[in-house]
Structures are given as C-alpha cells and as structure tokens.
C-alpha cells in the first residue's frame, strides 16, 4: 500500500488531533476576553460603580450567548468552572434536593446512570451511594448507545434522578437524549445530561430535547479552560438543586464565588461562534473523518472502528489496530498528538473502561487510538496522519508475535496466556 507523499510539505508538526481532550482558544475568543483582564476588571457584584456595571453587562451578555446556543432562557444558566463542577452540582445538588429521606438514612432515592460515563459523573454517583442513595449503572449497547428502553427497564418507584451523557468522550457515540428526557418527564424524574462533548458541535434545544440539567465546558469548544456552565430548567418542571459551594450568593445562590468574568466572556464568545459555524464545520470534519477511516481501514486488515457507525460525533474516531499496542503506536507517531485506550497510557494501568463497557476485548482496547479533529484541522493533515498511522502499524506488526500467529492461522484467543 502506498499513500501519496504530497501531504508532507503542507503540515506543521507537531500536529494536534486530540480535540476531544481540549481545544485551543479561538483568537476571536481571546480578543473578546482581553479587555476584561485590564480595563474592565470590575467585580460584577459591585453595584455602585461603572467598573462593576461593565463587568455585569459582560456577564449578562455571555449568559445570553450560552443560553442561545442550547435553546435556554438566560436565567437558566449558572456559570461554573467547567463540566466537572457542573456535573457535581447537578448530580449531588438534585439528589440531595429530591432525596426521599434525610441525610444519615438509607434508601434515600434511586439514581440511574451508565458505566461508560465520564468519571466526573460516576464518582459523584459513587459518593451519593455512600451517602444512602441507591445507584444503578447500566451497560451501553455494544455500539456504545443508550436508549429510552434501556433506562425504562431499570426504573423504580423511588427513582429520583437519571444522568446519561449526550455524547461519549472516547468514542463520540451519542445517546437518545430527547427520548430518555421524555420518559423522565412522564415519570416525574429529574434528568441530567453531561453534554461536554456534544454542545457546540450539534444543534441543541434543551426545551425540545426534554433536558432538566445540562453540563457544558468552554475548553471543548475553543473557549478557555476553567469556565463552564450548568443549565437548570425553570419551567415544566421547575428544577431545584442544592448548592454545593456557599458564600456570597452569586449565580442566584447556586454557586457562590466571584464570577470568573474573563472566562465567562470567553465561554460566551465561544458559544456564539459555535452557533454560527457548527453546521458547516460539522460537514467539513465529517468528510475528513470518513476519509481517514476509509484510508486506514482499507490499507490495514484487522482494524475496527469502535462505537456506533453513524450515531457519532463528526470530528472523532476511535480505531483499534489488532496486534499493536496503543502506547507504542503513539510513540511511533510522536509528532501527532492523539489519545489511546491502552493501559500504558492511563494512570491506573487499566485499559479503557469505556471500550470494555462496549464489550471490546481487552486486547483491542489496548490497541485503540482516539483521533479527534478540530476547527483548524486540514485535509493535508489528515492525509499525513493516515499515512503515518499506516506506516507505524505496519512497523509494529513486523515486531508483533501476535501478528505472526495471526498470519500462521493460530487463534490467539485459544492460547492459554498467563495473565500478569
């Protein structure tokens, strides 16, 4: 297999293909933020001078920009430090508000989530379990999706909260959020979604999509790190949550602490840009993603694209390359920034729990690469990346005893391996 070498001259290295981890700030976002560091540095809580008023106006404007992106009312937006905080506030705040019994008792209420959620959802759920709530974590389908029926099957009379991510951060697969939301509304259950990977990339309308609580983060959509928001529905139903952080009563008492004005302005601008550009950007990235997948899977056998073939974010792909270990693959591709589900790339030395949840074998989980493109990714970059990936996989397969066995017709799963 030979791939055109023409791409080499047109790319700048190192190349960034890890936009699901974080994105660079759009220069237009930075421009919007800059005046609020120096000239307009006031505390929006200062009610008696123009410095405070300027900042307050900027925060109000940003609140509207965020609300517009997701079809919310600006009064329904609470600024936070990012999705981890939003998830904690939503899950713990709702559970404690709607608890059936006071703290210190058991059977305080039932919470449903999914095992391939982000840790920023799973760990708050585990905390609540220790505090007397019952938690059910369901398995996604093998294509990574979660449907209304799957949630319906585990509902209980005492279910108070369902939390299901909109799109998964490792495989990009998205779930039946409007349908699950409708189910929750029929049953009078609060519904939260971690939409960190979804918002800014896909059209969102919290009202039509039946979402009660939604977490989003600026740094996944070309905004700054350290800024995010939680949407809290105010009508049909009016959702109430208990604050985690207490103090000056900012954000209508839901989140005390002086507002991160620069971050909030950046988040707002990032939302505005996404609203304008997401449709054309999505189509462009989808074409690049499809080209990348086609090129590498045609050139290499025993590869597998993980997750649902179509219900998946356009900018992201997760591919397992059989007989090759992910960390060594990334080492061979050190000029291209990506992620892997390999154990060796994680602090825990466990392979990706997300791929495991899909029933992807541990061997293929170790062999996975997550490639996520962004606003400035070019076709030349994708051509270059595809060529280098193919080269690296072939090089490592030459080193791989498993690939030899595969070629000799030996079934690797039949060998008695000594796990270590």
């Amino acid at each position, binding site marked *: 297999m030979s791939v055109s070498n023409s791409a080499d001259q047109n790319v700048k290295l190192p190349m960034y293909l890890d936009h699901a981890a974080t994105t660079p700030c759009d220069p237009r976002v930075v421009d919007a933020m800059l005046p609020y560091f120096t000239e307009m540095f006031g505390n929006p809580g200062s009610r008696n001078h123009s410095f405070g008023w300027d900042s307050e106006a900027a925060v109000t404007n940003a609140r509207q920009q965020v609300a517009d992106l997701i079809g919310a009312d600006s009064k329904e937006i609470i600024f936070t430090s990012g999705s981890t905080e939003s998830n904690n506030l939503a899950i713990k705040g709702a559970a404690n508000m709607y608890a059936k019994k006071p703290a210190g008792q058991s059977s305080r209420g039932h919470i449903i989530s999914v095992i391939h959620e982000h840790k920023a959802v799973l760990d708050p759920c585990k905390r609540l379990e220790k505090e007397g709530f019952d938690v059910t974590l369901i398995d996604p389908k093998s294509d990574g999706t979660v449907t209304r029926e799957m949630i319906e099957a585990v509902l209980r009379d005492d279910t108070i909260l369902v939390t299901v991510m909109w799109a998964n951060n490792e495989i990009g697969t998205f779930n039946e959020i409007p349908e699950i939301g409708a189910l929750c509304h029929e049953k009078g259950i609060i519904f939260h979604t971690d939409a960190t990977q979804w918002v800014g990339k896909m059209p969102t309308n919290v009202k039509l999509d039946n979402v009660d609580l939604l977490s989003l983060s600026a740094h996944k959509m070309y905004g700054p790190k350290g800024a995010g928001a939680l949407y809290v529905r105010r009508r049909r139903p009016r959702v109430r949550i208990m604050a985690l952080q207490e103090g000056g009563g900012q954000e209508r008492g839901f989140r005390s602490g002086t507002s991160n004005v620069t971050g909030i302005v950046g988040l707002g601008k990032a939302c505005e840009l996404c609203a304008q550009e997401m449709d054309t950007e999505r189509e462009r990235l989808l074409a690049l993603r499809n080209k990348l997948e086609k090129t590498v899977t045609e050139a290499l056998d025993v590869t597998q694209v993980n997750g649902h073939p179509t219900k998946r974010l356009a900018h992201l792909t997760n591919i397992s390359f059989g007989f090759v*270990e992910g960390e*060594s693959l990334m080492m061979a591709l050190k000029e291209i920034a990506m992620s892997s589900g390999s154990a060796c790339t994680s602090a825990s030395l466990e392979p990706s729990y997300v791929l495991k949840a899909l029933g992807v074998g541990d061997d293929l989980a170790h062999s996975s690469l997550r490639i996520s493109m962004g606003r400035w990714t070019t076709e030349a970059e994708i051509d270059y990346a595809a060529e280098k990936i193919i080269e690296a996989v072939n090089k490592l397969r030459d*080193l791989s*005893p498993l690939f030899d*066995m595969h070629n000799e017709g030996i079934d690797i799963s039949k060998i008695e391996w*000594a796990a*270590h």
Partner: protein
Amino acid sequence: MAYSNKVIEHYEKPRNVGTFGTQKEIKERTDIGVGLVGAPECGDVMQLQIKVNDDTGVIEDAKFKCFGCGSAIASSSLATEWLKGKTLDEGFDIKNTEIVEELSLPPVKIHCSVLAEDAIKSAIQDYKQKHS
C-alpha cells in the same frame, strides 16, 4: 510518558527482531528455546527465541518479537543483546533490576523488565526441556 534516551533508542532501532521459523518449525528444532510470556489482554506479549550451541551450551543467537509499550519493546530488545554469547547459566542469572537500571525504567514500567526476565528464563527452560 517521558522515556529515557536508551528506551527510545531501542524502540526506534530494535535489535534482533525476528524468529528462527514459524511456531511449528520452532517446536521441532532442538537447538532453539522459546519463551512466550505475557498476555494480549494485559497489553504485552513477549516472544524470545534463543539458538544454543548444543556442545558448548552457549547462546549463539537470540531473536525477539514483542506486542507491548515502548519499554516492553526496549526490554526485550536489550535482553537479546545481553543473551548473545552468554552460557545458559549466565543467561539465567540476568535480573530484571539490571534491565531497569540499564534502561532507566520508571516505576510504572518495572513490570516490563519482569516480563523480559520471565521470557529469558522461560526460553532457557524450554531449551533444557527439549534436551531432558
């Protein structure tokens, strides 16, 4: 993961990659010992083959293949270098700690050196078994 230059060097130019034949051929050859350790689900598998002079008991050649991270590849590459020219007894004495030291492996990668030591011992035992 910031690797030492030695790991990167072995990873980029691995020594003695290969086999002395297919799995079936190797089984029948009495001058070859094979160590196959690790497991695909753990993310590393090492295959180490030694070619031994039956008269002198000296390891004349060694080859490896490895499915694993950079330090697993480097550890097995280093093992083949060290084995060549050693007697079976000398080879058996190679310790994982020596590999750790030579490659400056970080604590999370020590298991790669353990795997390499296992592969060495397993290859030598396989050779001896073929001759018992």
